[in-house]
């Protein structure tokens, strides 16, 4: 991790890793028990973000509760065209992950959208614009809860 984390910083960090208050003045609420002002809390949080310790502060949604759908997709692209295809795929906010893998197909990406129709549109558009043959949509039939990692 980049840079040491100081005492007060650690307290603020551990607080915001838990539940962020849904309140008019949440940073004051966080600061009160620590004896610091909202502005001081915020400057600590900003520092953590700037130093790359914290990636984001904000809400985490349950996409399934909102009716969102997602699928893994694969496209086979010759080596010299990978960069161009990858940047086309990356340009969609519906794409959350995109990587190059060994073997064929070699470009693997995940598409998430608010409906099957919207997801299909994104996939079709990528297929048309990339002009590298069919994009395989490989939705999960069953998902297993894993022990490793954090979800």
């Amino acid at each position, binding site marked *: *991790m980049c840079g040491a984390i100081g005492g007060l910083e650690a307290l603020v960090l551990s607080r915001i*890793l*838990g*539940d*962020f208050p*849904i*309140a*008019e*003045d*949440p*940073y004051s609420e966080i600061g009160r028990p620590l004896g610091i002002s909202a502005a001081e809390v*915020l400057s600590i*949080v900003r520092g953590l973000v700037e130093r*790359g*310790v*914290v*990636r*984001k*502060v*904000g*809400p*985490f*949604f*349950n*996409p399934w*509760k*909102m009716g*969102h759908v997602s699928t*893994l997709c*694969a496209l086979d692209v010759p080596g010299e065209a990978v960069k161009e295809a990858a940047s086309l795929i*990356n340009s969609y*906010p*519906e*794409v*959350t*992950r*995109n*990587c*190059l*893998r*060994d*073997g064929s197909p070699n470009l*693997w*990406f995940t598409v998430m*959208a*608010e409906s099957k129709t*919207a997801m299909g549109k994104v996939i079709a558009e990528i297929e048309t614009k990339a002009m590298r043959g069919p994009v*395989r949509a*490989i*939705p*999960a*039939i*069953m*998902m*297993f*809860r*894993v*022990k*490793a*990692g954090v979800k």
Partner: protein
Amino acid sequence: MDKRDIELIRALQKGEIFLTERPFHEAARLLGWTVDEVLERTRRLKETGVIRRISALLAPGSAGSTRGTLAVFDVSDYRAEETGSLMSEHPRVTHCYIRQRFEGFPFNIYATVCAETDEGLARSVEELACVAAPSPYRALRTVLEFKRSSPVYYTLSLDAPAS
């Protein structure tokens, strides 16, 4: 989903909101709503589980130093569920799914595996192969990661004119 909830969800996702002094006031300002409506709807989204939590997300500890691979297995349908469930217990498996096979790609179990070293990765894949044995498998090493980002919900990209 309620139309106003969708507008709220779009606003709350904006990265900088939670780095302002009063994030929910900032959301209200962007939406042209009262802060009371923002707070009330946010609380309700949290209660109903649409918002899992609001919090900070730590950046991955040593980005770039872990190796990943997607291991895919062609396991007979009748034992795919059992095999996938066993694989998901493996400490190095971060995702595990059953997916449909497709033309030229006869694999149905997908397990992503992470490790600190190439040896560790290879060992984990071998262990999974033992669970799936004698099924054919392949390890699709991550050569390059082009994108890994937080999902964006209710995107507007398809409504917008082509850029």
